[in-house]
């Protein structure tokens, strides 16, 4: 390849690893930047090296053990052929350069081509008590188990909706934790209605059925179609209250709650890289635009995996390969066809998974009217402690019809998380109050840093100078 090309991949999950593998096969040596200490992403997360406990792949990843091992092995083989930078946060992107933070040092990483495989986090739909100690996201609960070998509590309720709800409950129960209940806000009827689409991936569908069956066989209480009312507790979780499908009030004692409502793509880096966004009704959020190959609207920026739209780990592997092929084509490298995956086939498989995903999103849609029922005193933005009531008052006075204006006036999304956790809630509340569709109340713009960064490492760079000519800007 021409030395003029500098390809950077952000993310070493299934999408990033397969993209790197495809690039290496074409003779490209990419830089792979990953926030985690070890490769695998969230779904195939590895326990930290020297963690002091050992669990087999089968224990850690269940049905996905083979896939996890395949992805891990692929990356292990790539290591000599890539510039791998683990434990590194890409916190800004401007003018074909990423700013990264690793081990307390700042490094600027220039690129000519960028593949963003930034993954996803749990979607949060708040309910009273969600900020109590002992409430974790489903992903967080899973990380505790996978990376730390511990459970989030001794009597755990899993609440929310989505396939992860049952998977994490299963993993907890299997690991010996006491799962008090699984409370799914989606009704069984909706899941049954979506079954034909989900059967486009029969093995995935079968796994979902298996987890539910296993939990039931082991006496774990499962309720569907519930409305979550509140998590009780003073400082820490003491119990949870909900209403059944028929509206009957229920409660249960517990000391931890794992909560999640599907996944939400991490799109900030794509935003900073200048990608154009569109509202995606299926994911119920704004996504960076991309073509079937993964090219974004920004020149030489490619998107793959859940960070560009939730499609799961299998799709992430395919999309990572596909985006890398597009990149290889765009920089004009001619490869032996047999040595590389077939682009058409990859796109066909991705399309098939998309049908399955549409089924999943329909079966496990987050509760649509939740925002309407949030009590005024409930915190929506925990960084800045903004309540639903504060936001409502602002919206009802006519001051904010758009989410960035709501942010300006109430501070929602201005804190440490920069709206990554609460941004969707703000949009939902704005839509509920104004009667507008989610797509019509604006999109929170991302600003660097993507995650808070310490100031000290910023002070080392000697290649920068003060610009004293700006005397007036205060």
């Amino acid at each position, binding site marked *: 390849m021409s030395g003029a090309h500098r390809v950077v991949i952000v993310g070493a999950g299934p999408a990033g690893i397969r993209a790197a593998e495809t690039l290496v096969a074409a003779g490209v040596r990419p830089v792979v930047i990953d926030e985690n200490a070890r490769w695998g992403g969230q779904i195939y997360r590895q326990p930290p090296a020297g963690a002091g406990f050992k669990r087999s792949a089968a224990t850690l990843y269940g049905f996905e053990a083979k896939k996890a091992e395949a992805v891990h092995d692929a990356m292990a083989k790539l290591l000599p052929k890539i510039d791998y930078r683990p434990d590194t946060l890409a916190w800004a992107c401007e003018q074909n350069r990423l700013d990264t933070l690793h081990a307390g040092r700042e490094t600027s990483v220039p690129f000519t081509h960028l593949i963003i495989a930034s993954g996803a986090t749990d979607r949060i739909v708040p309910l009273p008590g969600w900020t109590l100690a002992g409430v974790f996201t489903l992903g967080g609960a899973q990380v505790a188990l996978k990376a730390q070998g511990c459970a989030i509590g001794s009597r755990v309720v899993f609440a929310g909706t989505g396939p992860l709800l049952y998977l994490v409950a299963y993993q907890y129960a299997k690991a010996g934790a006491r799962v008090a209940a699984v409370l799914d806000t989606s009704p069984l009827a909706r899941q049954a209605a979506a079954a034909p689409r989900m059967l486009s991936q029969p093995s995935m569908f079968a796994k979902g059925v298996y987890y539910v069956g296993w939990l039931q066989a082991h006496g774990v209480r499962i309720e569907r179609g519930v409305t979550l009312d509140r998590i009780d507790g003073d400082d820490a979780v003491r119990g949870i209250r909900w209403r059944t499908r028929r509206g009957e009030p229920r409660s249960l004692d517990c000391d931890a709650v794992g909560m999640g409502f599907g996944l939400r793509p991490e799109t900030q880096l794509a935003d900073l890289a200048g990608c154009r966004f569109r509202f995606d009704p299926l994911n119920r959020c704004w996504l960076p635009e991309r073509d079937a190959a993964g090219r974004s609207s920004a020149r030489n920026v490619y998107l793959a995996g859940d960070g560009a739209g939730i499609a799961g780990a299998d799709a992430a592997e395919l999309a990572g390969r596909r985006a890398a092929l597009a990149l290889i084509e765009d920089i004009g490298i001619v490869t032996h066809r047999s040595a590389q995956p077939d682009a058409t086939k990859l796109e066909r498989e991705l399309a098939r998974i998309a049908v399955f995903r549409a089924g999943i999103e329909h079966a496990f849609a987050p509760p649509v009217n939740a925002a309407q029922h949030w009590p005024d005193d409930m915190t929506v933005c925990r960084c800045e402690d903004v309540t639903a009531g504060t936001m409502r008052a602002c919206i009802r006075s006519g001051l904010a019809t758009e989410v960035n204006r709501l942010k300006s006036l109430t501070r929602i999304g201005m804190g440490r998380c920069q709206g990554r956790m609460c941004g969707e809630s703000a949009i939902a509340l704005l839509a509920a109050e104004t009667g507008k569709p989610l797509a019509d109340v604006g999109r929170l713009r991302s600003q660097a840093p993507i995650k808070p960064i310490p100031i000290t490492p910023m*002070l080392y760079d000697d290649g920068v100078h003060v610009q004293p000519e700006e005397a007036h800007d205060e």
Partner: protein
Amino acid sequence: MNDTRAGVSHFDVVIAGGGLVGSSTALALAKSGMRVALIERRFCGAQASGVNYGGVRTQGRTAEQLPLAVRARRVYGRLPELIGIDGEMVVSGHLRLARREADLDVLDRWSAMAREHGVESHVMSGPAFRQRYPWLGPAAIGGSLCPSDGHANPRLVSPGFAHAARRAGADVREQTELSDITFDGTRFQMRAGRERISSDWLVNSAGAWANRIAGSFGESAPMKPIYPNMWVTEPLPLFIGHSLGVVGGGIYARQVERGNCVIGGGRGHGDGEYAQPSTATTRAVMRDACALLPALRDALLIRTWSGVEGETPDGNPIIGLSRTTPRLLHAFGFSGGGFLLAPGVGEVLAELVTQGETSTPIDAFSIGRFSSTPLSVTH
């Protein structure tokens, strides 16, 4: 609101641009009974007026800006009464720091000059200064405190003026583009969105985009877009007692009640339409900021931002009547220092419309001052 006027297409005054200048002008005019339309292409107070540092600072202003600055400062003392909110206005005092001996002379000279305009400031240095400000790093060797200065929250103040203007009866239209602007010899004719409207007066307060309006009347001012670079830390224990600046400019800092430190200096990037902060600038300013405020070293940076502002060659704004068109008023090009001045400019423009003159000297800000220099339109 103002449904009763929905069918009316003629206004006494149309204001192009819903930043703090346009909004405060709209408020002042609406309160004096004029029929006013405030037309904003995006959202009121969402551009430079809403994303700037928030300095309510007279200290360091040039002699020609001081009368206007003093007048504007008085407006900031009446925010609750004027716009119904305090806008997080804090009379913290402004401390202008000296980092070398020569800076102290600059501070002394300014102090003497400002006193003639009724603005008090005290220059300090040496052990007394060090003792009074243990939270300042050794890079600061002295400073001048102007106790009547302060800071406010532009995100609240600027939209607040637009909202107050609407309550006072102004027809405030957001997400509405002005186009086809002409003067027919009697009235201004234009299109607001799809609707045709006309007016007796036109106020050009379109900020970095004001040359587009001026250009409709064969006029332009040498102005280039600038992108001030800003950042904010997580909340820290309160330690920055004043709003801070330095002699020569380039860095400024304040701490809000919640504890976040808002710091600015240098430039981001932009294309004239949108702005993006620059990490290289942020880094450079951080080093300077930490030399002045060592406690920042342990903080977390949570957000950076920028905005689009217009800068003139002499750093002074353009305020006053057009040279080509009667009843066309310009007010733009505040060069990064407009947050304090804007509400004063609103009063001045309202006086010019209603009384034909203003008690505040603004001759230095005439668009005519650039006539000897070659005009270049760079919006």
